[in-house]
């Protein structure tokens, strides 16, 4: 029973983040740019749990994100799973890891995901990446996720505690 409850922690965290993203908190904005908490979750899972966990979390979060957008279904899951996998590569760094590095990875990963989504929408003729606002979007989304990273890492570590994935992960300072 305890194991089942442990296994439910991460999906429940994801559901909570999805709900928060679509409430007043998610409507807050800096210069009309919203925080992307789902992306923050994906990056944090990747950094804490590694490549496979990052890819799976990215895929599921992407599907959920797409459910609230009219952009092509599958676009966010494609980008999030790829970025989750890429960030998960950081597990190879082993004992060189620090909280600052994790925060930096999450901030950079979030900005890169935004760039990929913009590029994907451009390929499909749905967006123009040359307008000036995009640079600000990348910076704000990356910056906000950099700042929120420690909290999300703590939540994800708590949610993944006891799972096989975390016990086999790299030793951390």
């Amino acid at each position, binding site marked *: 029973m305890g194991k089942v409850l442990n296994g439910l922690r991460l999906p429940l965290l994801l559901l909570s983040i999805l*709900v928060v993203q679509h409430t*007043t908190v998610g409507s807050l904005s800096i210069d009309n740019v919203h925080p992307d908490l789902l992306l923050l979750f994906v990056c944090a899972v990747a950094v804490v749990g590694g490549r*496979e966990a990052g*890819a799976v979390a990215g895929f599921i979060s992407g599907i959920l994100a797409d*459910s609230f957008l009219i952009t092509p*279904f599958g676009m966010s899951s494609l980008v999030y799973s790829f970025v989750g996998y890429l960030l998960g590569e950081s597990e190879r760094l082993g004992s060189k890891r620090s909280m600052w590095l994790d925060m930096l990875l999450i901030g950079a990963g979030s900005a890169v995901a*935004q760039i990929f989504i913009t590029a994907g929408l451009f390929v499909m003729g*749905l967006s123009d990446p040359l307008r000036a606002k995009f640079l600000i979007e990348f910076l704000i989304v990356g910056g906000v996720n950099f700042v929120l990273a420690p909290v999300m890492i703590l939540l994800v570590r708590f949610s993944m505690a006891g799972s096989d994935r975390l016990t086999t992960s790299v030793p951390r300072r």
Partner: protein
Amino acid sequence: MGRLFERPRITVLLAMLISLTLLTLNFRGGGTLSFVSVKGDVRQVVSPLRNSVNAGIDPVANFFSGAFNYSSVKKKNSELEKEIQRLKGNSYSYQALKSQLANVLALNHLSFVGSLPSIDAQVINFTPSNVQLSFEINRGSSAGIKLGDPVVAGTGLAGRVVEVASNSATVLMLTDPSFSAGVRISSKGTAALAQGQGPGLPMKLLYVTPGTTFTKNQVLTTSGLQGEIFPAGIPVGKVIRANIPPGSLEENVDVQPVVNYNTLEYVKVLLWTPGG
């Protein structure tokens, strides 16, 4: 070779493959596949939770907003009181004008205003996304709303329905980069295309006939052309800037939407059939 097919790589390849398949199906299916029902189901699950959380958060947010902006709230309050007095005075004359206008519309058989059926709806949420500017309303297909229906607010065009669930619908805002509407430039009657540029940015006017003159705050209305996606005569925006860049033949015209999305609470969905 073994490393190439290690488990995490297979997982990410699988996830990306499924995503690409969904994307392809989405495009090839032209929106006829049942993604909408999947999306609707996810929304049905999240919607009550979201409303409960909002009910808890909003009073707290309002409290802090009021506390931090007390002086501006007080100032705004007195301004609003003056405004109410002024509007009360105006409303009496408007009522007389309204009946006159109804007569004129009936006489001239003018487009949509008099006869077009519509549904009132409340704005329940602005989509917190950086790739799409839209908002959700509390009426959907069960009320008769369908894809493509124009949505208007008190001052003019507010958007177009781009997704419909049974009890809610998503409306694409004028400022979204994928939104465009044919407009008529009232001074000469020539048409152009107004396109969104993104959050916080004015719309841009495309395909303007060279030599067209604009005045500041000139109101542009829907043209009724462009396959008649929108009925003619709905105010879209006001011209805030117009100039010809050096070496260019086309005028650079910025248009501010007449609808203020910051204060948008109620809208009217026009049950308009394109070409109808």
